[in-house]
């Protein structure tokens, strides 16, 4: 298998982000003269396993749960933190890239690092592996959200083009009698319209009409086409086939009237309300049909107002 040379977004972020962007700032600190006996409560109540020791806001050591256990073992009752803390403290600067923190965690096996401000030398926070993971996830989430907004704007292409009166056209071929591909054209159309950033409610209405029309092509004809035109104010769906034609359009529009064969009805089609669904969901439906020549449906939708989007 070839090595994947792509740099993942997470890798990129680990280089980009700084320690002080993900660290915990609200740090529980103790002093040199804090009695070891009180560390039990500090660790327990704050649910931490180590605390920096600070003097004049500067890091002078770190006292961990391990130091505490060691102290219990030795049994020097009146010890203060200074006597048991680790003074050779590993720390990170706040302005170091996260990738340094990651490698330091890997090398040392420590659970946390104190973070010090490079300029002032003061303790500014503590960083754990959990902070890194949480920080990365948060950043990814923010980036993803920004990208979504960006994509949405990019999809406003139509409005820009339409300033000069352009119309977008799509065409779909529907195979007659082929139930395996039924609904394919209308679901593609739906995805396309969604991608254009059109009002979701309008998209839904167009998709439903296209689906019903597509099913009619499949059930009753040898196939046909669904042509869609989108401009600033309308979506027009034109469905054409070359036969057999609708003998009585008025009758065909009566709810429940259907000429679908039995096997089609067994599949749940041919309920006799397909055309009604098209008419009810659209702003205009025109049917032209001639026996033996074919049928043309022209379905018009007014573009929904942006404020109705939801």
């Amino acid at each position, binding site marked *: 298998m070839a090595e994947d040379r792509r740099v993942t977004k997470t890798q990129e972020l680990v280089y980009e982000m700084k320690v002080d962007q993900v660290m915990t700032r609200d740090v529980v600190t103790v002093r040199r003269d804090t009695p070891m006996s009180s560390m039990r409560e500090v660790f327990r109540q704050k649910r931490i396993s180590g605390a920096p020791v600070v003097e004049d806001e500067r890091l002078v050591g770190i006292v961990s749960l391990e130091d505490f256990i060691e102290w219990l073992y030795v049994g020097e009752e009146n010890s203060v933190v200074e006597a048991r803390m680790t003074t050779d403290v590993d720390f990170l600067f706040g302005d170091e890239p996260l990738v340094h923190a990651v490698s330091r965690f890997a090398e040392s096996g420590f659970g946390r690092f104190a973070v010090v401000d490079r300029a002032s030398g003061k303790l500014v926070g503590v960083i754990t592996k959990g902070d890194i993971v949480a920080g990365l996830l948060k950043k990814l989430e923010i980036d993803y959200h920004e990208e979504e907004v960006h994509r949405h704007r990019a999809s406003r292409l139509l409005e820009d083009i339409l300033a000069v009166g352009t119309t977008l056209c799509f065409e779909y071929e529907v195979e007659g009698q082929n139930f395996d591909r039924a*609904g394919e054209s209308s*679901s593609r159309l*739906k995805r396309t319209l969604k991608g254009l950033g059109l009002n979701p409610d309008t998209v839904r209405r167009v998709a439903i009409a296209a*689906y*019903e029309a597509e*099913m009619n092509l499949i059930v009753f004809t040898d196939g046909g086409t669904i042509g869609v035109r989108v401009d600033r104010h309308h979506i027009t769906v034109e469905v054409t086939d070359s036969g057999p034609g609708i003998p009585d359009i008025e009758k065909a529009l009566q709810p429940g009237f259907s000429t679908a064969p039995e096997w089609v009805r067994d599949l*749940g*089609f041919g*309920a*006799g309300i397909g055309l009604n669904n098209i008419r009810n969901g659209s702003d205009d439906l025109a049917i032209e049909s001639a026996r033996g020549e074919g049928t043309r449906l022209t379905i018009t939708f007014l573009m929904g107002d942006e404020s109705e989007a939801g």
Partner: protein
Amino acid sequence: MKLAEIVDTLDLKVRTGGDLEREVSGGYASDLMSDVIAHAAKGHVWVTLQIHQNVVAVASLKELAGIVLVNGREPEQATVERAESENIPIMVSPLTAFEVIGRLYELGVTGSTD
């Protein structure tokens, strides 16, 4: 109510992936595609005995929460594949439509379209 709770309570067998955490807004029962298109509402759970892949197309079109197949009818292979790609959960119950709907109603899943 979440789909997952319905699955648990009615002991439905889940046959596809899809979002079981989705909120169910109500229910609709019919075996006629156009009828479902006309009357089901977004977020409804749909009770039907139809097992061909067009149930997925209709459910996706209407943005339904999921499909419950009754009488122990299993979805066709193509239906399962399509449901996976459209992210529509399909569940199976050995009970009749009448029983399934009655239990759903008891759980508070009504025919409301709000």
